[in-house]
């Protein structure tokens, strides 16, 4: 019942049934800084994650660097590790 999120070279398992936006926040990223792609197609962040999606790629939108983890969600400081 899990969906795999792929962000750069990391993968995260999140339960199906939640929205893309909530999943992005759950893994400690800022929704504004990533785009969700399934089978090469963009999906909006209100989309409910379904088991059949299997893999959702999160594309970082910030050029010139990787978006830093959202501190409130992970407790990590600037440049800190995600998990």
């Amino acid at each position, binding site marked *: 019942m899990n969906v795999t999120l792929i962000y750069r070279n990391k993968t995260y398992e999140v339960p199906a049934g939640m929205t893309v936006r909530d999943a992005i926040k759950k893994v400690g990223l*800022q*929704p*504004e*800084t990533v*785009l969700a*792609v399934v089978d090469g*197609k*963009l*999906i*909006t*962040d*209100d*989309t409910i994650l379904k088991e059949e999606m299997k893999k959702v790629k999160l*594309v*970082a*939108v*910030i*050029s*010139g*660097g*990787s*978006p*830093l983890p*959202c501190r409130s969600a992970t407790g990590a400081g*600037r*440049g800190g590790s995600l998990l």
Partner: protein
Amino acid sequence: MKCRKCGGTAVINMRQHKLALCADHFLEWMPEQCQRFIEKYHMFTPEDRILVAISGGKDSLSLWDILHRLGYQADGLYIGLGIDGGLSYSDESHRLAQQFADERGLKLVVVEVEQTYGATIPELAVISNRGRDKPCSVCGLNKRYIMNRAAYDGGYTVLATGHNLDDEAAVLMQNTMQWQGGYLVRQAPVLEANRPGLARKVKPLCRFYEREMAAYAIVRGIEYIYDECPHAVGSTTIWYKEILNQMEEGRPGAKLQFYLSFLQAKEQGLFAQKADDAELHACDKCGQPTSAPGECSFCRLWDKVRAVKGARVPAEAGMTSKQ
């Protein structure tokens, strides 16, 4: 979420505009908006010869694509910086820029810093002792110089860069935190060529969010360099982008409002023009404009390197182009 125009499945929701669009309508909307910004800020007309600064990233390639779709005469300029960072960063970005140009039959002007001047950017940073592990400041100096010179010498009437709203808002916040009056007064969608030797510079993407630019590149199928410059990781600009995105998360449109209200305040005279009254002279060596008497900072930098490495003289700067 449904497309506001046709009711089809939306691929992007732009919360700051309360607008969701499907792939087809998003690909129509972006050039329409860009054309609106080009006209609003009097950037250029179809008669202008535009040189687009191309990094191989999503913003510059998408800008070139949009200008091409809008029917403007736009050539690209790629500057080979010689950055490897373990991922052949410069080689890969050059390949993608060239591929983009070849596929569309566009002209890409290429300036390789090492071949033209005698050292790569990372070597230059070490030899000149300016930012040994962070060559960003010498890199910026070189890019600004080469872009200006290529546009001016090439007879282009305008130089376009792919700065998006997030880039502009981050720089604005940084300059505001330090009340950099001189920088604030110069930050604008158009920098006029108000001094001899300066190219006119424009930023047609300055009102698009970074998110929209990435979405455009993906939906349009543009292959761009996804990895960031290895030297940019942890930069101050990215830190400010993160802060602005936290504000955006709570209040959609916060970034856009910050930038647009700054432009409006500037127009209403919030910043005195005298903050930008530096006199420019022609550099004794290369003739490019400089604020210091004698040689410009670009020539002084390369003088240092030449003393160590025997680099070429900037006046011989050659450019290659491929159609």
